[in-house]
């Protein structure tokens, strides 16, 4: 084939389409291989992350089970299912932990909340947020111990109407220069405790052997 013919062939629509299609197929194949070879490891790492954040709000002394095994699924206030991880000693529930989120000053604030069977906060931690650095990010335990003020609190302590920042007549400090962020966190935690109150019976019911052998099961 002469050089001219090759050049003409390279200009043709067929060559271009085959080239694009070929590269796309190759790219898709590479991504499939990449996904398959990392999927299990990533799932493992994510589970470790989850365990690490759970252990911050459910003290290891409280339980002898694997926190990730047989979580409960309960409907939240907005109808979305909430996954609840239980701390068990034997079959007795010694604490539960679940994620709660709400809108902050800029974007969603996601928290994990640990509650004991009497409805008292065992611990709360911010998992992710996009609040203003230097002002709103004091809700992180790494930046400030503000979030520890919730430990031991419940819906009766302080009473529900005082579950607010001081500026709104509540019991919890705001930050100088940032009120919206702490207000959002207090609101999320109050809703978290209300969720607990609504489902207290299901949440604190002793685990049964059958539940323990069933990986994910809702109580209904």
């Amino acid at each position, binding site marked *: 084939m002469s050089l001219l013919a090759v050049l003409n062939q390279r200009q043709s629509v067929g060559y271009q389409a085959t*080239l*694009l299609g070929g*590269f796309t197929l190759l*790219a898709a194949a590479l991504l499939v291989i*990449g996904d398959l070879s*990392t999927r299990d490891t990533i799932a493992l790492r994510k589970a470790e992350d989850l365990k690490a954040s759970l252990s911050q709000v459910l003290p290891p002394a409280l339980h002898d089970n694997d926190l990730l095994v047989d979580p409960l699924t309960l409907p939240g206030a907005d109808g979305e299912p909430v996954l609840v991880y239980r701390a068990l000693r034997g079959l007795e529930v010694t604490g539960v932990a679940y994620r709660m989120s709400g809108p902050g000053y800029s974007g969603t604030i996601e928290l994990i909340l640990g509650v004991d069977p009497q409805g008292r906060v065992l611990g709360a931690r911010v998992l992710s947020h996009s609040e*203003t*650095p230097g002002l709103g990010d004091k809700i992180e335990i790494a930046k400030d111990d503000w979030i520890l003020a919730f430990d031991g609190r419940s819906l009766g302590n302080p009473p529900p109407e005082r579950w607010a920042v001081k500026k709104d007549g509540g019991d919890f400090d705001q930050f100088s220069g940032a009120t919206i962020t702490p207000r959002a966190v207090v609101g999320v935690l109050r809703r978290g405790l209300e969720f607990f109150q609504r489902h207290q019976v299901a949440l604190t019911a002793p685990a049964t052997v059958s539940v323990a052998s069933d990986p994910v099961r809702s109580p209904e």
Partner: protein
Amino acid sequence: MSREPNTANKTAWGRLTVDGLWSNNVVLAQSLALCPLLAVTGTATNGLGMGLATTAVMIASGILIALIRGWVTPEVRIPIFVLVIAVLVTLVDLGMNAWLHDLHKMLGLFIPLIVTNCAILGRAESFASRNSVLPAAFDGLMMGIGFTLVLMLLGAVREIIGSGTLFANASLLLGEGMSFLEVTLIPDYRGFLLAILPPGGFIALGFILAGKRLIDTRLAAARQRRDATAGTNALA
């Protein structure tokens, strides 16, 4: 964006180095990649991490594109380059998430941003697609290092002014051995929020660009003087 002449037989390694680090620097000269630049340079550590990840992708994309440049026709080159870069970044993202998980937690947000880094496509288009594998990889390395240096400089300036520290959390990125890099320069500093927020990034970047222009002007003036003296000497 300037187009490099094809250095077919002889590769000017020195020129590639100077281009990447200074005279054709991704940020300072080409004004590319400003979005990831301003987004991640709140601290020097973040800048360094983003710079290293970008450098890795630049080298890999340079190699791949130089390898396939023989088959790719000019008409479809852009979608194919974009595809190659996107696949690379996704694989890097997946791999880091699986095997360098702690690093990924720090940089996780920034890695998908690399796809949007037009500097990579820019180098693919203007250099890698016209050169062989080794120069393309070297160009990617130098451009990447140049980008990393600017990211780190901008991050350091913003971090010092904004929070009074330098290389905070560097040990998370580089391992415990590098924790000596973490310095609190101004103890009990109350912080200067503007420097950390995006406007502070724009302002600091403006000063850095101005600084580069100033140095370039000085250098050019000095060269002119030298040439002039050389000329007089020759005449005399």
